[in-house]
């Protein structure tokens, strides 16, 4: 196994294990913990956010370099723009619809292994990132510590991307391709459920 693949596999296993089994390390009480923890949990506790973040990583894993690292770098930045709009009260129509659509579109992109030009993929991801960011940003002013909150949900978003990338890399192998596309189908279905109000 090449060095790069070992790195990705080890990081993914470690992060996934940590996310699934870790309990809160409340070593310090006070505003910092409240803000950081709340911010971290915000994307993770919302399934509509989780599926979209995973889909970005999956799609990046399918598209390979440079999309595999460009998309997870573009997403937080565009998300921050949307977040800034949410914080300052700039309205954005159809935020929840946009978030649900992100699951559908990105899930379908993974399912059908779509490989558009890099800039098209970046634009699609960037547009959806604005919707997600706006949803996070509207809650930022209420956070006990806005900086910790922002850091928390940016980190959570990045870690979800990383898990998606690691799973997306499984598409290099025969059975892995089917698994990745199945994940895309599941994400698209979940997005449709959110859009129609079933979920």
């Amino acid at each position, binding site marked *: 196994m090449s060095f790069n693949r070992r790195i990705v596999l080890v990081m993914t296993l470690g992060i996934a294990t940590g996310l699934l089994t870790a309990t809160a390390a409340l070593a310090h009480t006070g505003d910092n913990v409240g803000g950081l923890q709340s911010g971290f949990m915000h994307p993770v506790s919302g399934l509509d956010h989780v599926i979209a973040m995973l889909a970005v990583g999956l799609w990046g894993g399918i598209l390979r370099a440079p999309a595999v690292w460009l998309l997870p*770098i573009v997403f937080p930045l565009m998300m*921050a723009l949307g*977040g*800034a709009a949410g*914080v300052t009260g700039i309205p954005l129509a159809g935020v929840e619809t946009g978030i649900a659509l992100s699951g559908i579109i990105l899930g379908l992109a993974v399912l059908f292994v779509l490989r558009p030009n890099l800039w098209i993929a970046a634009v699609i991801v960037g547009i959806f990132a604005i919707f997600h960011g706006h949803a996070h940003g509207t809650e930022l*002013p209420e956070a006990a510590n806005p900086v910790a909150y*922002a*850091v928390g949900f940016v*980190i959570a978003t990045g870690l979800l991307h990383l898990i998606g990338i690691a799973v997306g890399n499984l598409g290099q192998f025969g059975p892995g391709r089917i698994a990745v596309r199945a994940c895309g189908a599941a994400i698209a279905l979940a997005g449709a459920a959110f859009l129609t109000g079933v979920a």
Partner: protein
Amino acid sequence: MIRPGLAAAVLWPVASSATAHGTFEDGAEFYAGAAHPFLALEHFLLLLAFGLLLGLAGRDRAVIPLLLLAGAMIASMAIAPATPFHAVSLLILAATLSMGLALAAAWPLPLMIMALLGLCGGAALGLDTDLPRTMPGTGLFARMAAMGGVILSVFLIVLNSVALAHLITHVWNRAPIIVALRAAGSWISAAALMVLALRLRDMMGIT
């Protein structure tokens, strides 16, 4: 001859804590100062971004910007009572945002710009630390102890960040790890942008 592993296994249950050093009395100001850069996340993000960017450019070019950062910080902490500047947190966040973007783009900034960032960043951090407000009625020695603690922690954060970024980009030089550095830059700038928007909103009274 006793094997080291066997010796460790025998001695481990009977070992007691080695409390060779405890907190020293009258050191509260120093500890408070040392903790400040870690607890003030805006400051920590700026220092982290600054250090990572310095390491990206190469550790050999880190000396001057780092000295300017420390010098500006000491000077601004010393003169803070005379210069209340309430928008200094905006400067900190704007500097953090720009440095995070440069890191995300893996763009090593010229030495002149890093030196300028060090100067301005250090001044802003020192003013925002605002020792007169956080330590009212304390004597000169206590304030100096606090400043010493702050500077020590600043060096800890920045030097470790420089070392890490230098290792990633100049020693290991592996694509996935360099991407992690760029991702860190995007995270830093994303967090800074959102908090900057919040501060601007509060300053402008937007509801």
